[in-house]
């Protein structure tokens, strides 16, 4: 599997994500700068990393969503390439329109940075096939704008279609229906606020995040 990691000015989890991709696939990812207008050939998985792209100006992810590379990411997603957006990457994917909803300021105002328990709501996707349904896993979060919002109709729809991948098993940020990760209609795009790449080595204190990358590598 060939992978790419998008790099925006202000990305700061791009190298961690590259390490996780390389561990899972055995190959170094292509690091793709935001000004690129095309993806390298033969990419199977694109990572949109965490950080503070463009300083979170206007809204988190809003400027990055307009950068040239995101058109290439959207085109690839439409053709079935896997796209994984983590934290700021999730915000970018909602601003791009690849995923429904929006990520607002945490309900408690504070930046939240700690390990949180998640429940696996869909264990059938390419991203989550190494988890059991309803399994509780531990993955860290680190965000200010992780409060997932969508109107009731959209929430009902994505829940009905099995597109909620993860839920918080504890109160974290005020997210609607405790949603922590959402899939697109095709099941090839996942956005999530928690950071699986920060729970991918024994030294991280757990390996629950690694299983997501291993699942993708064998998808």
């Amino acid at each position, binding site marked *: 599997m060939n992978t790419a990691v998008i790099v925006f000015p202000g990305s700061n989890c791009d190298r961690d994500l590259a390490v996780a991709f390389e561990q899972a696939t055995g190959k170094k990812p292509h690091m793709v700068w935001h000004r690129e207008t095309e993806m390298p050939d033969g990419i199977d998985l694109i990572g949109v990393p965490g950080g503070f792209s463009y300083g979170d100006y*206007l*809204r988190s992810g*809003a400027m990055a969503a*307009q950068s040239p590379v995101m058109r290439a990411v959207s085109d690839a997603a439409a053709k079935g390439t896997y796209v994984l957006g983590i934290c700021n990457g999730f915000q970018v994917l*909602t*601003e791009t329109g690849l995923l*429904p*909803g*929006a990520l*607002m*300021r*945490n*309900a*408690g*105002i504070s930046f939240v940075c700690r390990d949180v328990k998640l429940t696996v709501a869909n264990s059938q996707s390419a991203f989550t096939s190494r988890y059991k349904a309803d399994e509780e896993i531990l993955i860290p979060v680190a965000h200010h704008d992780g*409060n997932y*919002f*969508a*109107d009731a109709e959209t929430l009902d729809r994505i829940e009905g279609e099995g597109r909620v991948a993860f839920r918080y098993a504890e109160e974290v940020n*005020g997210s609607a229906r405790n949603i922590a990760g959402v899939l697109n209609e095709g099941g090839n795009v996942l956005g999530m606020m928690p950071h699986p790449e920060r729970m991918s080595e024994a030294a991280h204190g757990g390996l629950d995040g690694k299983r997501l990358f291993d699942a993708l590598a064998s998808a």
Partner: protein
Amino acid sequence: MKARVTITLKNGVLDPQGKAIHHALEGLGFGGVNDVRAGKMIELDLADGTSDAEIEEMCKKLLANTVIENYRIERA
């Protein structure tokens, strides 16, 4: 030619910043505040002849996230 775009959260969307401001006002002893909603204002300096439709497009494509926000355009 200038236009002013005011962006506010839609009704029913929780506004944590507005809430925090409200609490701070109460903490300062201002008791008569029923609610606070925070938003942002963006001032555009535009070429003469920029149409309303173009400003609308700017709002929809970038300035506001219409999933959660409303916008109001005023020409100055």
